[in-house]
């Protein structure tokens, strides 16, 4: 393996592992605010205990998110020095803003939220919870703003030595790519948290333990889940798709497995892209649907990969195609599962319907897979560019960090994260086993 491949795997591995945790905490922060609001409005201690249980799960995930997040910021400098040197003046803005505006907020008030409930009293404790939510969603904003700039660079000029200079701060903040990507990403985080909450509730109902809490968790999880799953598809997913169609047309063609340009292009539900033969094997197609979804006209022309020079094609078309299809496929299933559960909840039958509770419980891993697949779609879709249209990926790597040194630290991270994953599962299992009823 050459150094570039190892550096790319290094980032891909560490960021994929990292994002397991923030996607839950960002979504859960919102659901914690919901539970604390219910506690404040009803004055019922039940909701406070429910919130405390999820705060314990939150704390474990947050700690994991923090310790695996620090390497992300460092790697911009360690493994991608040339990229940092030329683009640091732009994306350094958003990364520094994340530190200044969200990490301080989040960490300060999480300490108060976890340790200071008695000292603060109910209202101030609600405020602390709300500020944790605000901090985590701001953090998501600045990170997505950074990625959005790499996907669709705006507000810059090129200096005399080719360095990238920020020319408009507001263009960076109001990047047209940013709005949909941010909303799509944050809604995805709510989906993960809603499924997790519903699953734990379903587990308690199935084993007939802590059932009042089980019902609360299922109710909150399902209501949040049905709303978020629908928002994933429309308008956020649709908006994000149009961004790609408009600004990264070769990426859209690769995601859809469309090798030839077509008027009235079909939408491929399944099939395997064969890049050598330039065709989709074993396809299941909906005629003209891709044209309609992209341009709202059944006969609109959609450009296939053949419309672009091959050096602008994403460098891993099968990965891009499959990750996109996994994301969309799972997203569709989430809507079905949550709509079914919401219907039964509305009819008052859900808590006794064991089959649906089983379904909810076993669904937990899939939002994680869908969110991960979504990010792989975004990042593999950006290739072969590091900054779309501006800097190719091989140009950004650290020139003096050898393949051997990079492999050494990649193996180190793999070992470290294996241990972390085992510990994480053990501790979360233990909290669920201990249950929400324990006195703190």
């Amino acid at each position: 393996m050459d150094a570039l491949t190892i550096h790319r795997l290094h980032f891909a591995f560490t960021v994929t592992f990292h994002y397991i945790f923030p996607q839950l905490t960002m979504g859960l922060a919102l659901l914690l605010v919901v539970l604390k609001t219910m506690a404040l409005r009803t004055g019922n201690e039940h909701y406070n205990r429910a919130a405390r249980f999820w705060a314990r799960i939150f704390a474990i995930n947050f700690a994991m998110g923090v310790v695996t997040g620090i390497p992300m910021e460092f790697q911009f400098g360690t493994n991608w020095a040339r990229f940092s040197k030329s683009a640091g003046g732009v994306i350094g803005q958003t990364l520094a803003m994340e530190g200044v505006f969200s990490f301080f907020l989040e960490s300060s008030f999480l300490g108060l939220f976890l340790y200071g409930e008695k000292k603060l009293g109910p209202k101030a404790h609600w405020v602390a919870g709300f500020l944790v939510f605000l901090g985590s969603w701001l953090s998501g904003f600045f990170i997505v703003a950074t990625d959005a700039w790499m996907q669709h660079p705006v507000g810059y000029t090129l200096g005399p030595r080719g360095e990238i200079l920020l020319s408009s701060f507001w263009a960076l903040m109001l990047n047209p790519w940013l709005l949909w990507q941010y909303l799509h990403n944050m809604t995805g985080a709510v989906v993960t948290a809603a499924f997790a909450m519903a699953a734990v509730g379903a587990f308690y109902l199935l084993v007939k333990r802590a059932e009042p809490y089980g019902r609360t968790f299922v109710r909150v999880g399902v209501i949040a889940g049905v709303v978020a799953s629908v928002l994933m598809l429309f308008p956020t997913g649709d908006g994000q798709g149009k961004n790609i169609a408009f600004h990264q047309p070769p990426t859209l063609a690769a995601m859809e497995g469309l090798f030839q340009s077509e008027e009235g292009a079909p939408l491929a539900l399944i099939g395997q892209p064969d890049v050598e033969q330039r065709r989709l094997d074993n396809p299941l197609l909906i005629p003209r649907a891709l044209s309609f979804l992209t341009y709202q006209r059944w006969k609109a022309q959609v450009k296939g990969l053949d419309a672009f020079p091959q050096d602008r094609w994403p460098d891993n078309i099968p990965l891009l195609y499959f990750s996109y299809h996994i994301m969309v496929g799972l997203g569709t299933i989430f809507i079905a599962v949550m709509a079914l559960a919401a219907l039964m909840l509305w009819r008052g039958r859900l808590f006794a319907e064991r089959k649906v509770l089983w379904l909810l419980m076993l669904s937990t891993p899939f939002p994680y897979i869908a969110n991960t697949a979504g990010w792989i779609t975004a990042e593999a879709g950006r290739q072969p560019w590091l900054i779309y249209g501006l800097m190719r990926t091989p140009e950004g790597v650290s020139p003096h960090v050898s393949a051997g040194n990079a492999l050494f630290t990649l193996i180190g991270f793999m070992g470290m994260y294996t241990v972390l994953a085992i510990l994480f599962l053990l501790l979360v299992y233990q909290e669920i086993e201990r249950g929400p009823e324990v006195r703190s």
Partner: protein
Amino acid sequence: METLWFMLVAVMIAMYVVLDGFDLGAGIAHLLIARTDSERRQVLRSIGPVWDGNEVWLLAGGGTLYFAFPALYASSFSGFYLPLMMVLWLLILRGISIEFRNHIDSLVWKPFWDVVFGVASALLAIFFGAALGNVVRGVPLDKANEFFLPLWTNFGIGRDVGILDWYTVLVAVTALATLTVHGGLWVALKTEGELQQRARRLALAVWWALLPLTVAITWFSFAIQPRLIASFGARPWGYVFPLLAIFGLIGIRAMRPREIPPFLCSSIFIVGMLTSAAFGLYPYVLPSNLDAGLGLTVYNAAAASYGLKVGLMWFIPGMLLATGYFVYVYRSFAGKVSLEEEGH
């Protein structure tokens, strides 16, 4: 503008070392001073609500460095690749050992994480010290202002330097001693009784090692890095920084019967030492150890002036807010720790 950002980044790094320094120091000290599970929990409790916020200064300082001096960030982070990766692993181990220790009540689980916590804290102090030593000594920058250093070569400071040589190891040991004193004083400030006595005794005992170490690294720094003499010669008002360090170092001992003043003095000592180094190197932020004509300065490493100007617009209100949260949180958790009111 570049100089202003240099000062802001220096302040953030100094804040990081003072704040995370005491919880690193508490980690180093706790294996030596806390004997029972209850005492260990008191030490952890004294940093539990704040360590994560303290570490944010590293992230925010790193982010600020990235945006204000991208060339420095790129060059130093890739050049110090291996030790930085190890720092990351240590930060991970240390973070989870604090957070996960009290989740399982077992005679195997807790002592294991206590040792991980102590060892990772000590190694981090050593790595940070070595990093500072490397910056003062200079690194073998090439024409593009890039470099790569192995962990060690022959421990000499000649042409083929490694990250660890006799000088940087000496700075590392000094950093270890500094943070042990700092952390010991913090624990003494936050606890009572036997534990408090032991923490104070440890801090004052290590102080006797810190004194000669400080003298030694000051002497060798001036001998190795000629820019220091040049800077202090050209701008004698800069002696205020080393004087601050001396005041802090003596103050730790002079005010030892009291609780808060020695801790503040140790903070002043840390700030004095770091600002002395920053002042002495300025305008260099990463000098070359081979060719005095090369090196990264605040000018050739800084981002474009538009970005630096616009950055001030959000940095100042943002940091005022952050300082507000910090004051509020520290006030909320002021006073001695007690084990009755554990949150979760």
